[in-house]
């Protein structure tokens, strides 16, 4: 039986929990002030498994929640996460996710896309932020950190029933 709304609610709850972790406990795991973006890793996983519709909706809602917790203007994170959810959803079922290398690559690329989109919004709307500064160390750390965490998170998320691929439980 299809339960797309139920699955979406579970995905949003997982993303919201990840956001709360990111704003509290993960602060302690920051390297040179840069913490991993586990919300992005989950979003990439969800989009690759559930397609564009689920990806963009969960990206938009998690982005809005992040904007509420952040100094960012409302819509800032929603914009980049919606587009990432949509883009990765297009590859649903077309990417073979092995346990290690593919997660590393897709998450590293997603982090770079996020940085490009965020920088674009910062430029277009003249938003005051430290950002990625000189596009050097901070972005490099975040890409590496997210990529390293992705195999573990992907393995964990694979165990969650609501995140199974769509051919078994259509969304």
């Amino acid at each position: 039986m299809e339960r797309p709304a139920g699955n979406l609610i579970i995905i949003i709850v997982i993303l919201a929990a990840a956001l709360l972790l990111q704003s509290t406990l993960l602060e302690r795991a920051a390297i040179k002030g840069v913490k991993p973006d586990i919300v992005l890793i989950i979003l990439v996983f969800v989009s690759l498994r559930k397609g564009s519709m689920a990806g963009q909706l969960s990206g938009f809602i998690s982005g809005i929640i992040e904007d509420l917790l952040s100094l960012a203007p409302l819509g800032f994170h929603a914009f980049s996460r919606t587009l990432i959810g949509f883009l990765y959803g297009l590859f649903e079922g077309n990417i073979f996710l092995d346990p290690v290398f593919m997660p590393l690559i897709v998450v590293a690329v997603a982090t770079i896309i996020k940085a490009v989109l965020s920088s674009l919004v910062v430029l277009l709307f003249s938003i005051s932020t430290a950002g990625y500064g000189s596009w050097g160390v901070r972005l490099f750390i975040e890409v590496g950190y997210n990529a390293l965490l992705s195999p573990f998170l992907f393995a964990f998320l694979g165990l969650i029933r609501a995140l199974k691929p769509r051919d078994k439980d259509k969304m």
Partner: protein
Amino acid sequence: MTRLQKTIQKRKVGVTCTSLVLISLLLILFSSRSLTIRPTEIGQSFLSVFQISVSRIGSWIGDTWNSISELRRLQQELGLARRRLAEYEGLSRDLVELRQENAQLKEQLDFSRTLPFKQIPAEVIGKDPGNLFSTIVINKGSSRGLRRGMPVVVFQRGLQGLVGKVIEVSLFSATVLPIFDPASYIAARLQDSRYDGLVNGSRLGQGRLTMQYVKKLAKNEVQYGELVISSGMGGVYPKGIHIGRVREIRARSYEASLELEVEPIVDFSRLEYVFVLDTGG
């Protein structure tokens, strides 16, 4: 069903994506932080309850884990301490030195008591979830009298250092804009040479501040390591709060003023408890 409806139905995913992206961009455009009632405050009030809970659960798990490893370490240290005890029994304690240390600690405590403003102590419960923005969330809100614009300070290494100012207040929590954020501006003064300037955050991260508009005349008087304090002008930050120390002096021939690089007094990575000052403004 009209042609338009059929097209929308056919391209459901694309239409939804475009709509969500447009909503996001419109929200960025219209989300102004100067409005009186804002959705961010309502959202923050709701989310801060979860933030406080997660922060406390995390602290509890961390404390329990630390206690176990602490016990193991203590057991090893006990043996070592017993051996050392015999060694140290022969040494007399230097009472004069201890008294001096005690007096210093008392002085620091009295320093906080002598401040002319009401202080509201608060605990840091969260920070910005992303890496692009830099905010600090504290566990006191409008229910404890916090208002927007209140300065936030901390006592570190015997100095009262400026942390930032309150920019968002919900019922049980408040968001603080730290001084290293590029959106932060503070009217400042060099403590010894008495030159004025404007300190603002740097886009290069939390370890740097920039002091601009310092007169070129100051070039020969400013010392490396000189303290930078708030000047009290502008009315947001009270006078005399330590901001940082001069680390670099830049004098460009084509500019009419000096630019100083300032290292903040406050170590933001070790921020746990802060004081919000009620200046009555």
